[in-house]
């Protein structure tokens, strides 16, 4: 009962912040918009008989190319969920931060972090449940008669679930890391860069193959399937490694939050 109330409060918090809405918009509308662009490019290339211009004639692969945007959305939601607690108010309005209100409303800190984690999971899974089917449907519609679907229904379902798991774990790690930093800025920049522009983890693999055990690379095959960079862990052990990272980070975050003065 207490957890349900806490989760409901956390969901309400996230949905009434511009940053939270932006995270959802990036993941949902961003992914769908990118899919429309990719699918139009694919259709043009296939219609003009130049399939070599595009990565795949499969609508599923075309839609899945937008997956990194969902990861960015999950990062934003995870970071905002706790980072917003520490945002200082404008000095004219007396300064102050929301964390005091949050902790007086929910003094059990582990319960609070759990509520935030559940809220992030619900939001990310909800986003995936809408975004993935819509993106794939849109890609099918646009590529239309030129499509050559190479991905079976069973494989598509597994990869959608894998992708959802990857987003979810990423969002939870963002939550845990931001709990430790108590500020949204640095985790937001580092995690978004790592997940979209430059993968620091991938660069690290050039130095040591141990980098394949880093959470983002370990979970990579959850949605990219098999045709990706060589080396690293398979999908299932990779998922376990990524999940272990997530649990470990959440445990550390919980232990620190519990002991720390607000």
């Amino acid at each position, binding site marked *: 009962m207490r957890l349900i109330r806490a989760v409901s*409060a956390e969901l*309400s918090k996230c949905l009434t912040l511009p940053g939270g809405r932006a995270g959802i918009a990036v993941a949902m509308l961003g992914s769908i918009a990118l899919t429309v662009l990719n699918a139009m490019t694919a259709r043009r290339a296939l219609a003009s008989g130049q399939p070599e211009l595009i990565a795949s004639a499969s609508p599923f692969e075309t839609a899945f190319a937008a997956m990194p945007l969902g990861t960015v959305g999950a990062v934003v939601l995870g970071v905002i969920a706790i980072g917003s607690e520490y*945002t200082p108010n*404008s000095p004219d309005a007396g300064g102050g931060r*929301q964390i005091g209100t949050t902790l*007086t409303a929910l003094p059990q800190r582990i319960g609070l972090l759990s509520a935030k984690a559940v809220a992030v999971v619900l939001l990310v899974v909800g986003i995936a449940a809408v975004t993935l089917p819509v993106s794939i449907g849109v890609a099918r519609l646009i590529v239309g008669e030129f499509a050559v679907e190479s991905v079976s229904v069973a494989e598509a379902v597994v990869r959608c679930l894998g992708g959802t798991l990857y987003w979810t774990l990423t969002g939870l790690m963002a939550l845990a890391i931001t709990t430790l930093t108590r500020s949204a800025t640095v985790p937001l920049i580092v995690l978004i860069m790592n997940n979209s522009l430059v993968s620091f983890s991938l660069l690290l693999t050039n130095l040591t193959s141990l980098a394949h055990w880093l959470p983002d690379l370990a979970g990579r095959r959850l949605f990219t399937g098999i045709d990706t960079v060589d080396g690293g862990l398979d999908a299932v052990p990779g998922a376990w490694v990524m999940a272990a990272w997530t649990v470990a980070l959440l445990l550390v975050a919980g232990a620190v939050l519990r002991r720390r003065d607000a």
Partner: protein
Amino acid sequence: MIDIEQLVKRHGARTVLDRVGFQAAPGRVTAFLGPNGAGKSSTLRILVGLDRADGGHALVAGRRYSELAAPLRTVGSMLDGSGAHRSRTARAHLAWVARSNGIGGHRIAEVLDRVGLTDHARARVGSYSLGMGQRLGLAAALLGEPEVLVLDEPVNGLDPEGIRWIRGLLRGHADAGGTVLLSSHLMSEVAGLADDIVMIAGGRIVASGPLDEVTSGYADLEDAFFALTDAEASR
């Protein structure tokens, strides 16, 4: 009822609170007075579970704050201005606070009206003035119809009309049997309101008791305050 005993808080080698103890009784307004940095906020933050004590205890209604199942229904507090995120509206802020403690949604409009923010309920908190932020903080404190009110510098930023209004509100709360504990560094603002006085200086309680007892032998509360806190400072 608030019961604080032997509270100790250290920041590194510095002792912020040195065996602080006092009580705040139902039906009375207790003013917690002291210069800035004397330990008022530290004490109140420990009382509502924001900070950890290194010794002693602070109880509300006989229990530690963290043991209260829906704390906002027992204790309403305001410690850090509005305590709201600047990008949220006042209404959205109160809505999540209400949900977190299972408080009915009808209370939101009631407390907004009570603190005079109804017309600004849909404005972002970042656009508020200091006084409006204080009023929102107070609205959140009143949301759960708590028996106990804990307010850190509640008259900060309020205009004379606002100060008059908050005095009436706190007096009414105590007269209805509630417990009110408020901190202040402004003697004149609390002199006409407080029933009991607790004075702190340098992390130690230097005087506590009914207003007339604490001020007896001095011209007024301000006089008593400086005599008692200066004595502590020169120790």
